[in-house]
């Protein structure tokens, strides 16, 4: 998958370490208090009835159902895949967007998901810390791609970013994108470690300039993970990137989103920041595991009017 060509000014911005630094530092700042106030205002949206049901189904179809544990086994992955394809046998919930696993379990997932619309995403590049050589990271990526992963969730080198070595971060993303071949590249910024919204804006642009198809908030292994203000800034970045290039890049929020109410807040922010064009699994994802269960519980409640029990939601 080749990167679509960028307009000249943006190509220039990436032409050297100095140019890149100047471009990123020239981006408008983010006023943290103002961003949080905007989120507070958007959080008052009251999404009910049909709108709520629609949001729940959107969220389910945008879910990357995830297991990233040292104790994962092929059995666990198979169970998760079954749930991904048919989240709720007692209802008619849509399948999720993807499964997300470690590279050594990709083959198992590909096998289990044969014939379904659910794709296999794999983390790579020394996830979650990203602390290793480029060669190791590329080998990690290649392993996942060779095994059949359709999407790669890479991590950026946060150490290099915070040290100001934007060129190094950029080059790594470019190299990983190349190793992805036809697979989509999601770039995890690990916003919890970037600390400021200004850094989130800069990292978002850096990742998109380097060819990332989608920017992702977190590994889920570090707290804080996804937050609404961080997501606001990332959605502004993809919106502005589209303004300048005509290209669509996506956003994925991962880590710490457990409740339907919270997921719907995210969708409201997507809807009113980047716009309705981003309300599709191609451009917005939830990286989650337990969120799916709550979405299914709320789905039943919306349909039947009864509060549901998790006893009736199959586990994976």
């Amino acid at each position, binding site marked *: 998958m080749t990167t679509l060509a960028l307009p000249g000014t943006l190509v220039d911005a990436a032409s050297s370490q100095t140019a890149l630094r100047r471009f990123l530092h020239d981006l408008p*700042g983010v006023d943290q208090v103002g*961003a949080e106030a*905007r989120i507070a205002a958007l959080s008052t949206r*009251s999404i009910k009835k049909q709108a709520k049901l629609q949001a729940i189904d*959107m969220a389910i179809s945008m879910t990357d159902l995830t297991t990233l544990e040292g104790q994962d086994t092929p059995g666990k992955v198979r169970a998760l895949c079954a749930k991904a394809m048919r989240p709720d046998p007692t209802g008619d919930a849509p399948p999720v967007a993807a499964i997300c696993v470690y590279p050594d379990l990709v083959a198992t997932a590909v096998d289990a998901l044969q014939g379904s619309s659910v794709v296999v995403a794999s983390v790579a590049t020394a996830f979650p810390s990203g602390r290793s050589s480029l060669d190791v990271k590329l080998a990690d990526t290649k392993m996942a791609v060779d095994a059949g992963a359709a999407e790669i969730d890479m991590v950026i080198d946060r150490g290099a970013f915070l040290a100001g070595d934007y060129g190094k971060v950029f080059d790594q993303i470019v190299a990983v994108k190349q190793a992805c071949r036809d697979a989509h590249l999601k770039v995890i910024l690990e916003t919890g470690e970037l600390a400021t919204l200004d850094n989130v804006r800069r990292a978002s642009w850096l990742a998109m300039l380097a060819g990332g198809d989608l920017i992702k908030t977190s590994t889920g292994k570090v707290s804080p993970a996804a937050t609404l203000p961080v997501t606001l800034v990332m959605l*502004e970045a993809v919106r502005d990137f589209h303004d300048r290039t005509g290209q669509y890049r996506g956003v994925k929020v991962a880590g710490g989103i457990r409740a339907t109410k919270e997921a719907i807040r995210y*969708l409201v922010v997507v809807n009113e920041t980047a716009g309705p064009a981003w309300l599709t699994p*191609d451009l917005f994802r939830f990286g989650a595991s337990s969120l799916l269960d709550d979405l299914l519980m709320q789905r039943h409640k919306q349909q039947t009017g009864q509060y549901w029990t998790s006893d009736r939601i199959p586990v994976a």
Partner: protein
Amino acid sequence: MIDLVTPTWEYAPAPEARDLANIKPSYGLFIDGEFVDPRDGQVFKTVDPSSEEVLAEVATAGPADVDAAVRAAREAYDDTWSKLSGRERGKYVFRLARLMQERARELAVLESVDNGKPIKETRDVDVPLAAAHFFYHAGWADKLQWAGLGPDPKPLGVAGQVIPWNFPLLMLAWKVAPALACGNTVVLKPAETTPLTALRFAEICQQADLPSGVVNILTGAGETGAAVVGHDGIDKVAFTGSTAVGKQIQRQIAGTKKKVTLELGGKAANIIFDDAAMDQAVEGIVNGIFFNQGHVCCAGSRLLVQENVHDEVIDRLKRRLGTLRLGDPLDKNTDIGAINSSEQLERITSLVATGEQEGAESWQPDCVLPERGYWFRPTVFTKVEQTHTIAQEEIFGPVLSVLTFRTAEEAVQKANNTPYGLSAGVWTEKGSRILWMAQRLRAGVVWANTFNRFDPTSPFGGYKESGFGREGGRHGLAAYLQTGW
């Protein structure tokens, strides 16, 4: 690849329960702790501006009623209120604050229905702030000797207070809370089009067992207000409203011993520099002029944008305005409610027409206007100059005038080029520039990287023809105490 068919996700109607407002068919005047019929029997109707439906019949206080209320306030002051310790007075005010919190939802719905503003705002801004004002001032009642206004500051006596229709309950709180905390008694006249929350506040006074006559509520129109202001038994006049009426009041009390504070109109400049945090600045523009349908004395009604980022800011602003939701004020997702009255709607419409005639370019987002009620779409005028009427006159509606500037000095010059001086906004990431601008802007309130933020601890009021005196904070107490100036 990417499916570029734009999905639609409509927010379903999310209406708040209208009958929580619990409106009676008619209301009397609240004098000396009771609801009484007006002596000359005049009544008028108050309507819901989003539907033009009549809500209730309300009394007009005539001269005899005004007299009765002022006498009740005077007696309450002499016999009861001035004899209470600050501590006990404070406890009454704490009660009022607590009751407002307990009845918050009812008050929010009532305010929204009577005023036309969105429930989201009454619920999240008007009512909580009003309660907070009472809490803040309750705590001052027994601490006045440390307010920096003398070792034993005394109240003025009976305060006559006239408030506007844009934030009815909040303006009542800004007036009544400090007056009571400082030991005064009150005769308050709410605006003609928004009497209901003041009357509900009267019920709250009863629930709090507030001694009779300490608070009196007289509904009516301009004549009632003039009668209150002009009554000999009033020691202190407090008015929030238009500059024109403010000047009338200052004339009316000339030669008397009455103290007066006025909080009047504005034509605030919201100034955006090229290094502003752009997305937040755009939010600041929207909050500045479209919050409360622009019915805000301190509204950022003039956008002064640095010329080199004009187009970018306007593009972002237009896109942002596309997500504004205009409609039923009781829908929790409504951002823009109704214009308060047909008179105000006419004024806005006429000034907008003038704007177009004088050569400015107007733009509005697509909003479907409901069939009944008073509505006006958010409007942005570009290519506006200081000589245009719409850059000088307060429109008091959702209409923004956009001008440009090149340097900070020029921004200051244009911002100050008005007889008004209530507020201003400055958007830049450079701290020293914020402080330099704040020093030079002739405005009583300067908001940097924010707008339309209010707090009971923070003094609010104007320079020049936006009025004098401050409300809120330690400084706001001076209006209700004998300070000698």
